[in-house]
């Protein structure tokens, strides 16, 4: 709890303090609202007293007019207050979200591999959302309502100290009770939310596997499981509800007893001639008003506890350092193809949940080789042989457990990360398209790339006609999930991205899905152009591709089984590659 208290403080310092001007206005609005709220009963009270004392009508009308005017002011004030609080909350959380995105984008691939995009949505949007109220209201409400509480108690004390003392006693007792009972509900609600999450997790998974369920006769079983999850959710929620309503009821009844006692006491004081009837009424109204700050304070503290889990998760995320340290200073040659050297590369993924940082099973075992500048190498091997991992070492997605990767003779760790990433381009099988403008999809939101250059690349790749058919050209918004684009077009767009970045090294994870012949042809041509004058690694799935490479490397369990010029290997009947060519590539690659 102590560490999270420090976390709250640092979050407030970082994201709430820059908004202090708005927060100050908010506080003023809140105080003004409170003041108006306190004046209101005074007006009513003096109205009663003056009416009974036969005051002139004019005087009574003036009082009523004041009352109306202040009510109107309060109305305006409360709208402004609500809007301003929401604005503060949204501004603060939006900044926090942006910071989280920036931080996570800079984290290494090991981090991202362990998390689905769905989980990232939940952590960056969902968790931060829970802090909205914390930024928007917590400090201000706590401050404002504590003042209101004090103010009312002072005012009642002014009417008569006995009344004041009674209310102070009951207020104190209520707050104390609240504090004692508050924690009872929290674990129950946690459990209830967990039951909810499990139910939806269950449904989501089953919705994705309807064929598996139906064709294997498990519909009845699945429906029964749904009811089991629902029963669990029912029980957890009902328990939490009953307990929290009871707690709420007990404290409220306690406090309202105080109101009743104050009322009776007021009546006695009136009978003793110590109070006017207006003052009795005023005291009664004030006790009613007292209920509000007590409930607000209660709610805010409860809310803070529920936000606690989110704060811990956010802090975890922000404290996760990137395993790739960007401390290099040596530049790479700016142009021309670069040679790639692996020197005794051994690598194993590090278990994300394990703090020791010891690598799991080794994926690459002592790889040493050199790919000359401008050469094209075909990478073959079964699933899990380490092809993808090897290709990712080239752009320093991971640092090797042992050994060094060199581009142009430079150890990657001595080169600024931005340089490495600028020099290497990767074309994956699946291109992630954004529900955003075509332009942004191609430049990945870099506004500095001129339109003419983008259009030129698109036309060069044979997509000119397609571009012309788009209603808003480069500004056309692509449909979510890449809808409206064929698999082949998406592949070509991925190539447009690469051409725009003009890399020195290309890693191509060849598409294994079948394209229509026309697109296929376009793609082949584009790849031929892409490979010219660049060092390339192709993770190959087709015989046709193999024919255009200079070298062939076959990986087996993270080790090089065979590596050499394609022509030499093909000519040697004893080589694994030659065997592959005869038995068919298909069976080798699976």
């Amino acid at each position, binding site marked *: 709890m102590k560490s999270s208290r420090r976390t709250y403080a640092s979050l407030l310092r970082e994201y709430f303090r820059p908004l202090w001007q708005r927060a100050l206005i908010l506080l003023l609005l809140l105080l003004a609202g409170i003041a108006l709220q306190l004046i209101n009963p005074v007006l009513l009270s003096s109205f009663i007293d003056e009416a009974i004392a036969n005051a002139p009508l004019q005087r009574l009308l003036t009082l009523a007019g004041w009352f109306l005017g202040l009510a109107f002011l309060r*109305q305006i004030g409360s709208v402004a207050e609500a809007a301003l609080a929401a604005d503060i909350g949204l501004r603060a959380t939006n900044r926090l979200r942006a910071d989280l995105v920036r931080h996570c984008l800079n984290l290494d691939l090991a981090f991202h591999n362990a998390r689905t995009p769905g989980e990232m949505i939940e952590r960056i949007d969902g968790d931060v959302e829970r802090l909205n109220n914390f930024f928007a209201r917590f400090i201000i409400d706590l401050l404002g309502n504590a003042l209101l509480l004090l103010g009312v108690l002072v005012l009642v004390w002014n009417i008569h100290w006995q009344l004041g003392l009674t209310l102070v006693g009951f207020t104190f007792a209520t707050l104390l009770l609240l504090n004692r009972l508050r924690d009872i509900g929290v674990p129950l609600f946690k459990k209830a939310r967990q039951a909810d999450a499990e139910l939806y997790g269950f449904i989501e998974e089953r919705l994705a596997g309807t064929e598996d369920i139906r064709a294997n006769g498990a519909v009845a079983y699945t429906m029964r499981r749904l009811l089991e999850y629902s029963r669990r959710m029912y029980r957890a929620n009902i328990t939490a509800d009953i307990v929290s309503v009871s707690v709420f*009821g007990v404290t409220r009844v306690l406090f309202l007893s105080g109101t009743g006692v104050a*009322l009776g006491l007021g009546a006695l004081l009136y009978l003793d001639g110590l109070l006017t009837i207006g003052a009795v009424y005023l005291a009664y109204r004030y006790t009613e008003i007292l209920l509000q700050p007590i409930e607000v304070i209660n709610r805010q503290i409860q809310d803070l506890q529920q936000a606690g889990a989110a704060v811990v998760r956010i802090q975890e995320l922000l404290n996760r350092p990137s395993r790739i340290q960007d401390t290099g200073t040596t530049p790479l040659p700016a142009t021309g193809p670069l040679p790639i050297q692996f020197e005794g590369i051994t690598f194993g993924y590090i278990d994300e949940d394990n703090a020791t940082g010891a690598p799991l099973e080794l994926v690459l075992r002592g790889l040493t080789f050199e790919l000359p500048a401008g050469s094209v190498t075909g990478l073959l091997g079964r699933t899990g042989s380490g092809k993808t991992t090897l290709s990712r070492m080239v752009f320093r997605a991971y640092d090797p457990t042992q050994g060094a990767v060199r581009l142009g003779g430079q150890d990657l760790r001595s080169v600024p990360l931005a340089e490495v990433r600028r020099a290497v381009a990767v074309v994956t099988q699946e291109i992630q398209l954004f529900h955003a403008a075509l332009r942004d999809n191609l430049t990945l939101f870099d506004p500095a790339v001129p339109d003419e250059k983008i259009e030129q690349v698109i036309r060069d790749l044979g997509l000119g006609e397609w571009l012309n058919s788009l209603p808003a050209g480069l500004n056309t918004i692509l449909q979510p999930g890449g809808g409206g684009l064929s698999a082949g077009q998406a592949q070509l767009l991925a190539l447009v991205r690469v051409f725009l970045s003009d890399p020195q090294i290309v890693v191509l994870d060849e598409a294994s899905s079948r394209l229509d012949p026309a697109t296929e042809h376009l793609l082949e041509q584009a790849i031929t152009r892409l490979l010219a004058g660049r060092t390339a690694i192709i993770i190959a799935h087709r015989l046709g591709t193999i024919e255009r490479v200079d070298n062939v490397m076959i990986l087996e369990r993270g080790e090089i089984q065979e590596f050499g010029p394609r022509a030499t290997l093909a000519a040697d009947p004893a080589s694994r590659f030659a065997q592959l060519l005869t038995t068919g590539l298909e069976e080798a690659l699976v």
Partner: protein
Amino acid sequence: MTPQPQPIREWPTWRYIFELARYKPWLYLASGLFASTMFYVFPLIPGLIVRDLLDGLTGAAPLQVDIWALVGLFIGVWFGRHLFILFAVIAEASLHMIINTLLRRNLLAHVLQQPGARALPHSPGEAISRFRNDVESMPEFLSWTIDPIGQAIVMIAGLSTLASIDPLITGAVVIPILITLVIVNIASKRIQRYRQAAREAIGSVTDFLGETFGAVVAIQLAGTHEHVVKHFAARNETRRKAALADLLFSQMLETFTYNSANFGTGILLLVAARAMQGGASTFTVGDFSLFVSYLGWLTIVTSMFGSHLIRYRQTGVSVQRLMGLMTGAPPQKLVEHNPIHILGDLPALPPPPTVSAAPLEMLQVRKLTYRYPGSEKGIGPIDFDLPRGSFTVITGRIGSGKSTLLRVLLGLLPKDSGEILWNGQPIPDPAAFFTPPHSAYTPQAPRLFSESLKDNVLMGLPEDSFDFEAAIRQAVFERDLAELDEGVATLVGTRGVRLSGGQLQRTAAARMFVRQPELLVFDDLSSALDVDTERLLWERAAQHPGQTFLVVSHRRPALRRADQILVLQDGRLEARGTLNDLLASSPEFQRLWAGDFDTQTTHSE
């Protein structure tokens, strides 16, 4: 969502609500009674007590009882109210969760009955928002339906009490209430519009987050982190504005209605000023306090009443979205009264039929045809026979219709025409028929669920009457199983251990084997298996002579094992025969066998 027309929507929203109310009528009434009526009526009582006290003190109406008795009554009333609230919460929360469960049950049951390929209108993730938010809004509105009764009682009781004191003053203070009602009604459409814009802005943010973290490698390589963050911030900014507009508008309405209580009191002061003058008039201090107290409460009640109309429209949107999941079903299916066993014991699962009533002798497919809606693509007409114990491989290029053929046969896609005969008997509803013990199926990308490995294989089958071990062996999974730390109890699926592609496929195969169906259908089972494992799998399959296999594959171990090979090309049956026949006669098959053209590729990775 609103502009999308829903052709199936034949019921107005209230019909659904009515049917839901009838599901547990007593609970509905109890919830209504506690939650609504008492909630509204109770606050009227303390006002009366305070009036009596004040009037007793000023001598306007002599006190009947002791002051402290009144105070005790005052506290007792509040205590009673909170006791009622407790009952109300239990009743209302029960009602909500029961109705939610019923709706989810009906939705899931329907989705599971749909042809698998087109069960959902969008993604499962999108469907979750319907299973959660849209489902929940139904019982919420249901609970509100009884409120107007409580509200009407309060209105009548409150206003007539006030009117009995002074009809003229009552008339004067009712006006702000009426104005509130009118304004809320006029504005309700705009409220919806702002809300919708705000929701869409949220969707745009989460959308972008998902896409960004799906493309993290591309962004890191492009080095455009800052631009991406900027774009993200811009979408957040849009959301902020939309949220503020939404909030500002509804807050303005809300504060207006709430504060009109103060206006009412202000008007009361103006009107009452004359009436109260001199203290001896008919309008007493106690009356005044009662007016103030009632007006506040009446105004709150009024603004709640106004929001009903908005809620009704919003519920209509939810009904549409839920019916969007109930493709092709009549409206009553959504709210059908099915048992959900939320309390008490769950009834035992019906025992699964172990032996087929009609063991497969011969499966005949005649002129089976299917076209994807709105396209020329599809399959058929296709004819073939599967004799008992045979091993049939369907092969062909990617996109030739292999998976489609399997799915149409099994009823996962609705056939356009043709006949399927089981021992000569036509099968009218393939979807219902092609389940264990008649058949079982493993799709191309099988799904496992976040349960133990054993649960994933058995999926509810009683362990004592089905041979789990044998199924694992037949699926060539015994060695993998031995390597898993927790064996059969290992949690798999998205929240558990990530199995490799081949392990996943073989677990799915075991799931099929354990059911001992007559006909086993694999869609490209071997795509992630190495050659040795695949060979072993087919060898072990051969040890079960009673089982009939229908397998999509283009790999040699399967083709060599086949009694019959069906070669598909562009959705038609191009050739049929044994391996040797086809190698001699079918040019398409020769190309497939040799794999010497670019389009012949694997599904791996």
